[in-house]
Structures are given as C-alpha cells and as structure tokens.
C-alpha cells in the first residue's frame, strides 16, 4: 500500500477549475517532483495536502488513515483535529515565512516546544509540587528539543548562525532554516513549494543541495519546482501538470527523456531554452 493516496481531488476558485480530478500515489521514501507552468495547480495541490486549502471533492489517505474526504457530507472539523492531521505534512514555502522576531534556533524550536508542552499534563495551579514537577519536565523536553534542533541546523549548514535573526541571513540561508524548521516536527511527508523561486540564481544551489541531501529511504518528499535539472536529479517520480490535470506521470527518465504528451514536450523544450 502506498504511503499517500490522493484520489479525485478537485478544486475551484470561483468559477475557475484549478484542480480537476487529481489522482496519484506516493510510496514511502519516494521523492515526487511536480512540474508544470505557473497556474497549472501544483501549488494548490500542495496546499490541499497541508490543509491550507480545502478541496471541493476527493480523498487524501495517508498510511490507511483518511485525512480528507471532501464533498462527502461537508462538515467543519474542529481546529484540533485539523492540526493533528496537518502535522503529517511539513511545508517549506516559496517565501520562507520565517518568524522575523525569533532567532534561527528559536524559529526551529518554537513549534516543537509548543507541541511537547501540550502533550504534558497541565499542573493544578494550587499544587506547588505539581507545578515544580511540570516546570522540570518542560525544561527537560526543551533541552531535548534544542539538541534535536541543533542537529537539524547543523545538517542544513547553519550551526554558526543559530543566534542570528532572519533579517541578518541571505535568502538561501533563510530557506535552509525553513527546511530545518519543517523537519523538526518529523512530518511523514515534507512538501516544498518552489523553494528556490524567490532566490537569486547563485543562492539556489545551496538550497537544492540541502534538499538533495535529505533524500533517504525513509524520508518522503513532494517538491514543486521549476529547476528542471534538479528535478531530474532528485526525483523518483515526476508529475507534469497542466491546466489543473495530471498530463503525464513517470520516472524522471520517462518524463524528461521520452515525454509522451505533446504538452509535456512543449513545456520541457521551452524550459530548456536558453536565452
């Protein structure tokens, strides 16, 4: 059984169909790369997975658990249920969206600490011993989280920047922090939404190298990108989207080497054009 099964996802914004009957699967440890021209629905698809958009129809099943069953008796889920489900996915945004008022380390640990604190039993406000116990546990967990965060920051090559604020970093460094931040919550699937589109050309390399370095047998990733060379190098599976539908799916060799659909061919030859 595939780790992620996406079935019949459709989404309209007003009268515009952004996604039309999207179906695909992702295996554990696989890197899926979504390519296609702007406006083809790649980003919306990622946002549906991350609960930032709600699809109009379709199901999203992760590890056998149905996360989204849209259209079947529309009911608003409560915030906590959605939070729990969306934590299966991590998201790296095009514009980083780091928290500007926190330094690098804090950006990575903030959500971790909040979540671990939530898992602890709240002490009774009248029992001093319970409060003391609670504080001690918090401190221990925070220390653990910090260790984990530092390891991740080291992994993205920014260990000498832990006390810097996002405004003191380059775009590439910011994006690497964002990657560490997303990894910190150990999501089942890590999504990248055009992670290098907001970067200067000389900074894209460092980010792409980090993403490539994350590839391993137990890390599943979905990457939306316009970097074709990178896509070809990192992908296990490539999906080419056009006008809200999946035009072509295959291994990178198939899609890049021998595209079947004329639309894919047109897109790839345009993308390969050098000015």
């Amino acid at each position: 059984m595939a780790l992620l099964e996406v079935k019949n996802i459709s989404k309209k914004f007003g009268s515009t169909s952004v996604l039309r009957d999207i179906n695909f699967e992702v295996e554990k440890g696989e890197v899926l790369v979504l390519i296609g021209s702007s406006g083809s629905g790649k980003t919306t698809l990622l946002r549906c997975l991350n609960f930032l958009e709600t699809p109009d129809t379709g199901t999203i099943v992760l590890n056998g658990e149905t996360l989204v069953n849209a259209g079947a008796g529309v009911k608003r889920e409560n915030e906590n249920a959605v939070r729990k489900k969306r934590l299966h996915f991590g998201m790296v945004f095009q514009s980083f969206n780091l928290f500007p008022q926190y330094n690098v380390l804090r950006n990575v640990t903030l959500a971790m600490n909040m979540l671990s604190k939530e898992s602890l039993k709240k002490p009774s406000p009248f029992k001093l011993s319970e409060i003391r116990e609670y504080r001690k546990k918090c401190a221990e967990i925070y220390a653990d989280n910090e260790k984990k965060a530092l390891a991740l920051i080291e992994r993205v090559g920014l260990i000498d920047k832990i006390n810097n604020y996002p405004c003191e970093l380059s775009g590439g460094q910011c994006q690497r922090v964002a990657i560490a931040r997303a990894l910190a919550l150990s999501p089942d699937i890590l999504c990248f939404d055009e992670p290098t589109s907001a970067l200067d050309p000389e900074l894209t390399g460092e980010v792409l190298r980090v993403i490539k370095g994350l590839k391993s047998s137990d890390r599943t990733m979905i990457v939306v990108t316009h970097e074709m060379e990178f896509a070809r190098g990192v992908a296990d599976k490539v999906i080419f989207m056009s006008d809200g539908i999946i035009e072509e799916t295959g291994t990178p060799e198939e899609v890049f080497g021998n595209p079947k659909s004329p639309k894919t061919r047109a897109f790839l030859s345009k993308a390969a054009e050098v000015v």
Partner: protein
Amino acid sequence: MQPEFSYVLQQLMSGFGVTCTIFFLTLVMALPLGLLIAFGSMSNFKPVKLITRAFVWVIRGTPLMLQVIVVFYGPGLWFDTPVSSRLTAVVVAFVINYACYFSEIYRGGIESIARGQYEAGAVLGMTKTQIFFRVILLQVVKRIIPPMSNEIITLVKDTSLARVITVAELIKEAQEIVNIYGILWPIFFTAVFYLIFVGILTLLFNFLEKKLSYFKA
C-alpha cells in the same frame, strides 16, 4: 494682588495630577479595549463586524468634547441615574473614544502582516491563538509604534477637554487663577507641563522602537 509663583505652581501641579490620572487611566483601559474592538471590526461574523464598524464610525465621527458631555449628562437625563463622579465620566468617554482610534491602528497593523506568517504557524501545528500571540502580535506592535505614539501624544493634550464638565485638569486650574487674579502667564505656563510630559513620552517611544529594531517585519 499678585499670587506667589510657588502658589501658582502648586495649583497647576494639582491640575497636572488630574491630567495624568485621565491620561494613564485612559491608556491602560483603551489599549486592550481597542484590540477587542479591532477583532470585532475584522470578525467573519457579519453582524458583529457591521455593529462594531458603525460604532467606530459614530465615535470617530463626533467630537470627543460632545462625548464627554453625553456620558456625563446622558445617564441622569435618560435613565434617571446621574453620574456622581465627573472624573469617571471623563475617563469613560476617553476610554471609548481612544479605544476606537486605537482599534483602527491595530486593525491596520494586523492586516499588514503577510498571510504567510499565519500559514507558517498553521502548518507547524499552532492554534489560532498561539499564532496570534506568539507570531503575529510582536510584529504588529513593532509596526504600530509610530502611529500609536502619535495618538498617545494627542491624548496628552486632549485631556484638556475634561474642563467642559468642570474637571479641574491643568488648563482649568490655570484658568481659575487667571480669573481670580487677572494675570495671564499661568495659562501660558501650562505649556511647560505638556511639553515635558510629551518629551518624556517621545523618549519612551524612541526607546521602544530601538528595542524592537533587532528584527525586520
């Protein structure tokens, strides 16, 4: 007969005390109330939004002096429960008025924060409340310090409107002396108090701005 300088100063100081009381009470209550009103005017629930915005329109659309008069005389006139404390009436009117002005500053600040900040918090599993207090608020505070300081400085001088219901604030005290002794300088002298007060506030705001300059938002 000329009054002693020390006597005038003493009278003005007592007036300045009342001015400060109005100022601080208004500030302490209007700042949180303004945030509440800002949430109301941004509510997704239409009736709340409309009522809040209409209320803000009325309060910003009428003179503060008139509002002070209405708060003081209104209850006695319409509900047969006269307001006993003039100072309370002034503070109530000021709090409502300034909360409305503050609310618009808050709203501007909150709406200026990029959607990506909310989304980043959401995908990291934070609740809406956590996102607001741990991610958004400080960025908003940083952005609204300049317009807020403007408004707060205006509040210092608006306290002089309290004399419309004969609350003995700074200008009112000075006027009394002018009326009794027929000299004009005490009324001019009140400017010194306002200038020093606003000077201190300005330094404070500069300090705050500097404190928050470690990040860009």
